[in-house]
């Protein structure tokens, strides 16, 4: 459970920060800092046990069917990584207090930063590869938000988008790789996977798994040729660069390689892909860094190069190399974060990051220059820093690496990279802090406050301590981590500045000497390079993005023609073609031998009426009122069919729905054109008719074959048997609705409620704008009856009201045992109220209504849900019902069931939704007129818009 706390702390802080966005900067900083500090304390408490060899685990089943568990563990590797994340996180938060200006959105910034921190902790702790993927994507998203934090800056937005596209794209590949990995291993559980390396490396999927996972790791860790997003991510605020883009997020790829080292490493393919990419990236990054002029760009390319170093070491596939990589990860996190913070200070104080304009800062800001120079020495790999030790370890490892019989190739290239890194490191310090100031724009810079200096100082101290007393601080940690990475015995870890004179020391000394020389004689190379056309990753990326967008747009223009008629035709045609194909296959759709029922003369007459009415609707469709009359004939015949075919509930529902549907259509038709000219030509009508006849005939045949076959055993028998015994009602249809399948009904009334609200949303604004203008014009042109509310109609409707309500109530109560129930009762209620609207007008009725449609819908859904939840209190499944029979004097036996309560909810929603549609529609024109009276000035503009 402690692990859950560790994981949730940053997320909790993120939520708190987001909710208190208006609090002071100090409050924001203290929330974020205390969350990081608390996490760090928890971690320190856990560290001794974990390092002693007992990883902590916690597992909660999430979606077991998919193999997705919420499973966390803390082993030494995770410990190191979480320690980096929380430790550097804390320092960065403190630094941000000095860095962010007072008027900046610190709440939003720190909220994103904590979101990122939580996602990173999640990656480190995940013991399930699917869970790891979720956190992996979350880091890409939070990185996107943080790079684009200054959203008014174009370079920030572009950099954010590029980072998201590259790391997100890599994330997609990683998803594929992880799914295949889980398939090959037979589990998504990380610990299980790590134990099955033989199975995975023997699997034919191994090459695909490796390539896909490497794509994910290389894009995240900015390996060549996916490195180009990292320099553009430098548009982010400097705390973000220090935290995400040097110390933690870009190391997630390295972490992943280390995490999966036991199952993936050790093959030829691994060696060439991983070590090769790492070596190339190390060289490339170091070379580019030497010739950049922006402080943060130099650091970014240096980061790319150093990440390449770690990737290369992991690629070597030996335990000692893995240990070196882990030690270098610690060193790099310390000195690179310090350098980014330092660059932020310089930028903050001088207003520029261009190294050509800086110089001589040591005189003006001595502390900054001292800390910066020390961190640079660590980056250059000079003694007595940790960087020296890890660089020597790297050279030592490369000296042992033989490629294709060549024992010199890798060590030479590694030395070249080390030489370059010495050169760019020293240039970074000398050009910036020493010599004379090359530009005197702006005020004289000073050392900043403690908030910005202290975190840098802490990191520099760590960088020194890692070199001076490496075994005391990091010896056992590195050994334990290396052991966790390799999954085998701990390698012999001997961290020390002095190992005697050996090849690695010679290479290291040579690198420093040539590096200094290179720095001194750099000018001609720089001049030569300046004449070359620069190969810009951004230009290539933009071109690729433009090409993708162009292709997508062309495809969309072809596919999406915004024509409902075309879509519907394709839909019907494809469905018909599939059905015809199924019917024509051998064995297709033969009719069965079930005995049929004879049709009486009444049934035949009704059938004729239905056929004639349907044909009439189609033929007379343009005379719209007439078409509605025919529609209602069809509805009536369908209701009669339900009565005849033993479905009284359906018949009642059909009749009631028919009434409200026809009223609704009449109201709408009132506003629509009555007899518009036809739009379709003969050819088109012929084509549509042909499709309609084939589809109709096919559907009819399908219905015929189905009805003439015997039924199989269905679940209906269960409903019948348990209706009275279990549900307490004899009307099996109603019991099914409110009990057996109550969950369906709950979903259905929710949809109905949403439809009601959508109708409101569609009609509410119709009184304004162009629509309102049209409605007012329509109102003016429409003849009105001289007698608006005929006396006889009004009186009859008012007298009918209580009677109708009584009938509705009766139908509602008997529903459980006799035909009736909530749906039908609600429709009767709605019709009774609707009648008042029609007879007495909208205003008269609306004044006398106590409850509006919105509360009715909300109340209905809530009461139905609450009834369902109530059963949970009695340890019964959601929506179980309970009932009992009670004897009341005079009235007799009555039944009380929780299902009645549920049915009440159903009734409320149905009344609300029906009234919403009809009441809104009935007075939309009236509202438009009133809107014009209330706001005449608006309507003038609308009238102009209509012209």
């Amino acid at each position, binding site marked *: 459970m402690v692990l859950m706390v560790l994981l949730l702390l940053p997320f909790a802080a993120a939520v708190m920060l987001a909710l208190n966005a208006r609090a002071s900067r100090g409050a924001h900083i203290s929330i974020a800092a205390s969350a990081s500090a608390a996490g760090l304390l928890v971690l320190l408490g856990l560290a001794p046990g974990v390092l002693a060899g007992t990883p902590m685990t916690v597992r909660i089943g999430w979606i077991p069917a998919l193999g997705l568990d919420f499973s966390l563990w803390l082993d030494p590797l995770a410990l190191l990584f979480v320690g980096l994340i929380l430790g550097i996180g804390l320092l960065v938060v403190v630094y941000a207090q000095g860095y962010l200006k007072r008027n900046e959105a610190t709440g939003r910034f720190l909220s994103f930063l904590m979101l990122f921190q939580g996602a990173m902790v999640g990656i480190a702790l995940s013991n399930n590869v699917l869970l790891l993927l979720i956190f992996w994507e979350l880091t890409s998203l939070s990185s996107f938000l943080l790079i684009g934090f200054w959203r008014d800056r174009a370079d920030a937005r572009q950099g954010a988008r590029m980072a998201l596209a590259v790391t997100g794209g890599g994330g997609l590949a990683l998803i594929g790789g992880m799914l295949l990995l889980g398939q090959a291993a037979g589990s998504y559980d990380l610990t299980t996977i790590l134990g099955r390396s033989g199975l995975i490396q023997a699997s034919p999927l191994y090459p695909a798994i490796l390539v896909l996972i490497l794509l994910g790791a290389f894009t995240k860790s900015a390996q060549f040729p996916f490195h180009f997003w990292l320099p553009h991510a430098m548009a982010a605020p400097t705390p973000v660069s220090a935290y995400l883009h040097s110390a933690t997020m870009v190391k997630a790829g390295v972490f992943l390689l280390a995490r999966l080292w036991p199952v993936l490493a050790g093959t030829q393919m691994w060696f060439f892909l991983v070590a090769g990419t790492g070596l190339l990236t190390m060289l490339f990054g170091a070379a580019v860094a030497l010739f950049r002029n922006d402080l943060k760009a130099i650091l970014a390319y240096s980061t790319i190069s150093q990440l390449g170093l770690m990737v290369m070491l992991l690629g070597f596939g030996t335990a000692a190399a893995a240990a070196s990589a882990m030690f270098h990860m610690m060193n790099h996190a310390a000195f690179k974060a310090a350098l980014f913070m330092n660059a932020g200070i310089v930028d903050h104080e001088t207003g520029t990051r261009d190294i050509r304009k800086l110089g001589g800062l040591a005189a003006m800001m001595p502390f900054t220059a001292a800390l910066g120079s020390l961190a640079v020495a660590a980056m250059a790999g000079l003694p007595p820093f940790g960087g020296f030790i890890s660089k020597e370890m790297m050279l030592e490892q490369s000296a042992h690496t033989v490629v294709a019989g060549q024992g010199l190739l890798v060590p030479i290239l590694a030395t070249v990279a080390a030489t370059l890194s010495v050169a760019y490191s020293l240039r970074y310090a000398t050009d910036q802090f020493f010599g004379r100031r090359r530009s005197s724009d702006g005020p004289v810079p000073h050392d900043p406050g403690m908030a910005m200096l202290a975190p840098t100082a802490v990191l520099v101290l760590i960088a020194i301590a890692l070199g001076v007393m490496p075994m005391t601080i990091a010896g056992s940690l590195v050994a334990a981590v290396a052991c966790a990475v390799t999954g085998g015995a701990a390698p012999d870890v001997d961290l020390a500045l002095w190992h005697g004179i050996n090849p690695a020391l010679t290479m290291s000394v040579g690198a420093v000497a040539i590096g200094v020389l290179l720095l001194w004689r750099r000018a001609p190379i720089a001049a030569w390079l300046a004449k070359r056309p620069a190969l810009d990753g951004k230009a290539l990326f933009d071109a690729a993005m433009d090409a993708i967008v162009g292709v997508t747009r062309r495809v969309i223009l072809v596919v999406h023609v915004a024509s*409902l008629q075309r879509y519907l035709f394709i839909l019907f045609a494809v469905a018909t073609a599939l059905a015809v194909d199924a019917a024509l296959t051998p064995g297709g759709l033969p009719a069965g031998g079930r005995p049929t029922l004879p049709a009486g003369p009444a049934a035949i007459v009704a059938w004729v009426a239905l056929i004639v009415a349907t044909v009439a609707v189609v033929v007379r469709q343009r005379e719209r009122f007439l078409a509605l009359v025919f529609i209602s004939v069809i509805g009536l015949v369908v209701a009669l069919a339900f009565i005849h075919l033993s479905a009284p509930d359906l018949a009642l*529902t059909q009749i009631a729905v028919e009434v409200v*549907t026809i009223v609704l259509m009449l109201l709408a038709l009132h506003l629509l054109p009555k007899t518009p000219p036809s739009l*379709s030509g003969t050819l*088109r009508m012929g084509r549509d008719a042909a499709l309609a006849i084939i589809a*109709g005939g096919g559907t009819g045949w399908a219905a015929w074959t189905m009805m003439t076959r015997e039924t199989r055993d269905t679940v*209906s028998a269960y409903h*019948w048997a348990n209706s009275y015994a279990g549900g307490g009602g004899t009307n099996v249809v109603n019991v099914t609705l409110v009990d057996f399948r109550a969950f369906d009904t709950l979903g259905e009334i929710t*949809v109905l409620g949403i439809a009601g609200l959508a109708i409101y949303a569609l009609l509410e604004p119709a009184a304004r704008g162009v629509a309102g203008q049209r409605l007012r014009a329509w109102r003016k042109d429409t003849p009105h009856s001289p007698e608006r509310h005929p006396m006889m109609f009004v009186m009859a409707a008012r007298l009918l009201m209580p009677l109708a309500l009584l009938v509705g109530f009766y139908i509602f109560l008997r529903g459980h045992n006799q035909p009736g129930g909530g749906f039908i009762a609600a429709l009767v209620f709605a019709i009774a109220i609707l009648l008042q609207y029609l007879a007495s007008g909208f205003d008269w009725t609306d004044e006398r209504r106590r409850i509006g449609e919105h509360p009715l819908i909300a109340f209905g859904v809530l009461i139905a849900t609450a009834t369902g939840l109530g059963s949970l209190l009695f340890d019964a499944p959601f929506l179980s019902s309970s009932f009992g029979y009670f004897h009341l004097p005079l009235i007799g036996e009555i039944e009380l069931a929780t299902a009645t309560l549920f049915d009440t909810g159903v009734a409320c929603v149905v009344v609300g939704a029906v009234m919403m549609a009809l009441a809104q529609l009935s007075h939309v024109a009236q509202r438009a007129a009133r809107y014009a009276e209330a706001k005449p000035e608006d309507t003038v503009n609308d009238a102009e818009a209509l012209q």
Partner: protein
Amino acid sequence: MSLEFLIASAIAVLTAGGIYLSLRGRTFQVVLGLTLLSYAVNLFLFAIGRLVVDRPPLFAKGVTDHADPLPQALVLTAIVITFGMTALVVILSLRSYLESGSDQVDGRTDIPRDETPL
């Protein structure tokens, strides 16, 4: 003539009419078409329980011959949802007409007869 034939042929005619009207160019015709299609679909779903005359699904002890209650329950909700859908489509077409001044299904005002896109 059997009842099964009457129902099957009614479903056929309603489906054909519904599809034909749904493919027309004006919103109100599409609404009519959807209404016809809904009748057909509801009848089809109902017929899954097979046709039974005069034996409604009201439980009584010992009765084994009765109409299938489950399709009836499903169709009952389907009828109500049909109303919700029809209402939404009607209002949608009304709003579209009010905004665009045209009751063509895509809200276009510029399509002369015979030139609608196929």
